[in-house]
């Protein structure tokens, strides 16, 4: 089933009185059920912008995203959290909230008018905390967590939301390398075993090339490349992104010469 589809998408911005700055043009993407897609590219290449558009949180310059075959503008805003859960980085640290309360926010789309949790909601919260390994922090104040722990709590919130489409903007930020790889494995498991469609952006390209089968690279000037790690390694955008003249993949390991220029 097509979970997410975009055709001819254009993103960018126009500074007041300035010329239009196109980040991405003629972008097409179809994401099937259970697919895991990594989004990579330099800082400012428009990864977050694209993810916000896909999550329905920002209007594209042209084109439109479809969720489950339905054009996004036709899905009422208050129903969207049941279809897609998204995690962006500019959130406040939720002072005063316990970790449990924070994760429980993910159950909002399913609770009644006053947000009271039922047994199944509590189960989903427990499950999400177990998956992300934060069960021991449940009673701690979210504001006292380290950045990495807080990131895991937000991730657990996203899992508790239990939406078929998950959109994550740099979920591995603040995580140590093993934790970042664990996260990638978790996303892999969510897509493979639970049929979630997961799209995330990251700067950690080495583990992505090893563990993810579909990668999209943005260059921030309107172009993009998409494909398997092997296909991408042969694309000229990959060389210019890494500022090198040769990229290859060997046994899933990304190999390139970074002092070439």
């Amino acid at each position, binding site marked *: 089933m097509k979970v997410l589809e975009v055709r001819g998408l254009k993103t960018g911005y126009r500074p007041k009185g300035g010329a239009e700055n196109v980040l991405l043009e003629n972008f097409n993407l179809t994401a099937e059920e259970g697919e895991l897609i990594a989004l990579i590219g330099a800082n400012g290449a428009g990864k977050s912008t694209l993810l916000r558009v896909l999550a329905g949180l920002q209007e594209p310059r042209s084109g439109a995203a479809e969720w489950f075959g339905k054009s996004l503008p036709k899905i009422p805003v*208050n129903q969207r*959290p049941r279809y897609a859960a998204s995690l*962006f980085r500019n959130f406040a640290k*939720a*002072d005063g*909230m316990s970790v449990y309360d924070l994760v429980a*926010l993910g159950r*909002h789309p399913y609770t009644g*008018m*006053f947000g009271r949790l039922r047994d199944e909601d509590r189960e989903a919260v427990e499950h999400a905390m177990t998956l992300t390994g934060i069960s021991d922090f449940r009673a701690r104040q979210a504001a006292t967590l380290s950045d990495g722990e807080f990131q895991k709590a937000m991730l657990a919130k996203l899992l508790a939301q239990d939406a078929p489409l998950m959109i994550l903007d740099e979920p591995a930020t603040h995580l140590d390398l093993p934790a970042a790889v664990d996260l990638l494995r978790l996303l892999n498991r969510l897509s493979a075993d639970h049929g979630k469609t997961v799209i995330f952006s990251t700067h950690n390209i080495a583990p992505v090339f090893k563990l993810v089968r579909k990668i999209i690279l943005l260059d921030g000037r309107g172009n993009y490349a998409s494909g398997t790690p092997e296909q991408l390694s042969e694309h000229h955008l990959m060389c210019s992104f890494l500022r090198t003249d040769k990229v290859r993949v060997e046994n899933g390991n990304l190999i390139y010469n970074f002092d070439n220029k």
Partner: protein
Amino acid sequence: MRIRFAAIALLAGLLFFLSIFLGSVYVSPAEVWQSLTGGEAPLLSQKIVTAVRLPRALTAALGGGGLAVAGLLMQTLFRNPLAGPSVLGLSSGASLAVAVTAMGGTGLVFGYYTQTIAAVIGSTAVLLIILAVARRFADVTVVLIVGLMLSFFTSAVVGLLQSVADESSLKAFVYWGFGSFAGVGTAQMPVFAGPVIAGILLSALLIKPLNALLPGEMHAKSMGVNTGRLRLAVMGITGMVTGVVTAFCGPVAFIGLAAPHFARMTFGSVNHGIILPASLGIGAVLGLLCDLIARRPFADTGIPLNTVCAFMGAPVVIYLIFAGRRKKWLI
């Protein structure tokens, strides 16, 4: 949690009855009880209880509770522990309007209703300005700063009016500024209680979106909250409740600011499902308590309500904010 809610309810109930049973005129408890239950009691006692003390206690409880709810909504919306009904400039707008009618030589007969209507117009006018600013600027800090500046501006105009006012109207205005829960009689009660209760009930509908707002506006949007509409709803409720309470009771200070902090501290939570009713209850307790102290039931003369509120409120708010920063239960 239930025990703490029960304790707040008990305390509010106790203070409510205390303020009905106590007063500068002695009415025996038996007579009070008979007046309340419609039994046989001397006419004077009956009048004192049902026409003076009961409406006053109701006003204190509702006014305190309403201001507390307004304060909580604003603290969450502005992500600022110092936001409160008086900070947005609503009470200042009301003050200015009252000052104009009282001292501006408008030729209006200075009376109870002129004052009330003027206060409502004043706070509504400020609310409209704030709403216009909120529409143009997504940033809530801008709105907060504009509100603060508006209150500086209005107090400057009030100061100007005071400097030229004659003695009797100056006195009347100063008395209004003292604040009092005594101004709502049985006849005015529906006009006072209606909007305040409506505001409190409407705010219960905002529990979920306000919770979603706690980790930031982006999070709220990703949870399907229409943040623009939420902002309008909070402003509308806050403006209505503050406007009406200020009109009838004067610019009551500190209760709206302090009660939500008390609620967070008492319950160790920022979940609005808990602290909205808690703020309401604690606001009612504070309103009744401040009023009881201000009336000094065992003395002949009272002291201004706002004096009591500030004496109790200012140190408490400082303590709450220090403690809250340490324990991280603050917004």
